[in-house]
């Protein structure tokens, strides 16, 4: 048929090719430093060196032996999960409230509820340290939980609001006409429909919490310290592949979490505002 048609196809293919090459490069750059960390964690040597020529689980055993890593990793995970859970409890109703509201006040409140991600974590941490100490909460797990929840709220609120706005009101109306009470409508219709948004927000807040040094910094106690604080303190005096190993373990745990979310709810919602 048409030789020129082929040419034209090729031209548009070439455009796509450039775009694909760019994106490929982008993703390589994106994961390269992370790949380095993972590789280094399997070195048998003392130092974090690249290229890694042999494979060893040595530093994973070391992890296991250095109690603060294990303890603080558990603390961090527990903290991330519980703070995002509390954030869900307060942010989801808020998102629904804003989603239903037609008023300007609610719009202004949206800004307010998003504000905690704009303030340096250190400022939030320090301010809260003095504030909480004044009201008698002091340094404790409770304080850590409060601080992380404050930072988690914006993420959960934002994604939930977006999903809620995307779900048509007629689903809820259909349910109530069919005899569902407000609670039943929420439980059986609204909640399942906005669940992906809630999970996406929770996921973001968990990821952010796991690496949030600034907010955790001031609240560590002997029994309750988060992984970033321990890592920072460890790095002051020692730099060995155990650090890479603990990072890899943390990453592996989050990836598993992600896969669970993906299998249960699908991650499409991550891409939903």
């Amino acid at each position, binding site marked *: 048929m048409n030789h020129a048609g082929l040419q034209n196809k090729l031209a548009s293919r070439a455009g796509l090719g450039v775009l694909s090459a760019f994106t490929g490069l982008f993703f390589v750059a994106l994961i390269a430093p992370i790949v380095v960390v993972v590789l280094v964690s399997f070195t048998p040597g003392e130092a974090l060196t690249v290229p890694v020529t042999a494979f060893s689980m040595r530093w994973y055993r070391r992890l296991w032996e250095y109690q603060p890593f294990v303890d603080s990793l558990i603390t961090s995970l527990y903290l991330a999960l519980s703070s995002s859970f509390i954030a869900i409890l307060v942010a989801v109703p808020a998102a629904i409230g804003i989603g239903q509201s037609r008023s300007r006040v609610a719009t202004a409140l949206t800004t307010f509820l998003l504000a905690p991600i704009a303030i340096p974590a250190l400022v939030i941490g320090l301010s809260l340290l003095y504030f909480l100490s004044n009201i008698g909460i002091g340094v404790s797990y409770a304080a850590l939980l409060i601080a992380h929840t404050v930072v988690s709220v914006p993420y959960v609120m934002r994604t939930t609001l977006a999903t809620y706005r995307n779900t*048509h009101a*007629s*689903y809820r*109306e*259909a*349910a*109530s*006409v*069919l*005899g*569902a*009470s*407000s609670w*039943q*409508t929420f439980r*059986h*219709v609204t909640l*399942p*429909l906005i669940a992906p948004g809630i999970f996406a927000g929770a996921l973001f807040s968990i990821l952010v919490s796991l690496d949030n040094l600034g907010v955790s910094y001031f609240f560590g106690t002997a029994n309750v310290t988060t992984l970033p604080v321990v890592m920072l303190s460890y790095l002051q005096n020692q730099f060995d592949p155990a650090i890479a190993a603990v990072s890899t373990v943390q990453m592996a745990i989050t990836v598993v979490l992600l896969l669970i979310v993906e299998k249960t709810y699908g991650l499409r919602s991550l891409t939903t505002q």
Partner: protein
Amino acid sequence: MKHPSNTATQEPGSGARAASKSLVLDAVSKRYGGVPALDALSLEVEPGELVSLLGPSGCGKTTTLRLIAGFEFPDQGSVSIGGRDVSSLPPNKRGLGMVFQNYSLFPHMSVGENIGFGPRMAGIRKPETQQAVRRMLDLIRMPGFMDRRVSQLSGGQQQRVALARAIVNNPSVLLLDEPLGALDKNLREGMQFEIRRLQQSLGITSVMVTHDQEEAMTMSDRVVVMRQGKILQSGAPREVYDRPRNRFVAEFLGTANVITCRIVSRGAQTVTVGTVCPDEAHGASLTLALPKNWTGELPRTIEVAVRPEKIAIDAPQPGHVQFRGEIVQHVFRGSQHSYEIEVPELGPRIYAYQQAFSSGHAGHARGQAVTISFAPGDVVALEPDEGHELAMSGIDAFICGPETVATQGVR
């Protein structure tokens, strides 16, 4: 299986008349931010009746349904179902069924779970719910679809599942908001039949909103034509079609040749009009029944309407009025021919339909001189419209002479 609405407990204060109705809206008004959406609207629906609400966009059809459903509450007036005032009940306490334009099937549930949602909410136990769902699936002729995902259904199938979900709980009133709006024409006509069949066989009192006038006439026991939050006319489809109250109704429900006539004289119940402009010298004269609500002084002119299918071409009958004209446009529409005829005595253009009786007959040719005729009984005198205009921008309006909604394809 009969709808249970009449057995509902009757509350004190609601009139005895209301009790015999399935649904009564009593002078309900609703404003949105100061702008009235419904204006003291009253409507009564008999048990088992299917009433269609018709009207231009924004006239308040959906608002009416939402007030009945309980999604909105009236500013004034009351809503009663089965003789019981439900004005302050939330939707889930009203025992209704509803079908939405986009079906609103729960996307996270299977077909069976969607249909079973109502019974489940009513606290019906699982085996009975399953049974009810199966009965519904048989009713809508989709027996094997219990475990299908909603996303795997075609539009027509979704529509039927939505219907099943709405009626499984034996609702006292079924509400349908443009239930067929999202379907294409062929499927739509099939579903009109299906819905009407179910509605009649189960005897469910129903209120439907549709944009499609023919659909409303085909399916309903009664059509209600609304404008700006008010009911203009309500009655059996044929009655409203044949005796439209005013020009708006005439033109909204099908096509109408509206002719402005000079008033010659007035009787007790009748008015005699001349069919040409007052400034012209000739034309026929007709004596017509006065519109019901006609009171006060007689104006100088009056509008009358004749439907295109009432006009015969070259087939005058005794007693019919006759005019000479010329075919200016001929459109073949399948089962009908549509003609645009210039009739000097009436004004520039008259529309006439002719059944396409025979494929051998080519229809009247453009330019052909014809005689048109119609029975005086098919001419309706219209009440003057209260300053409202059908929003038909782009269509020229004549001060005097026939004006027709341009619903004609043109060659």
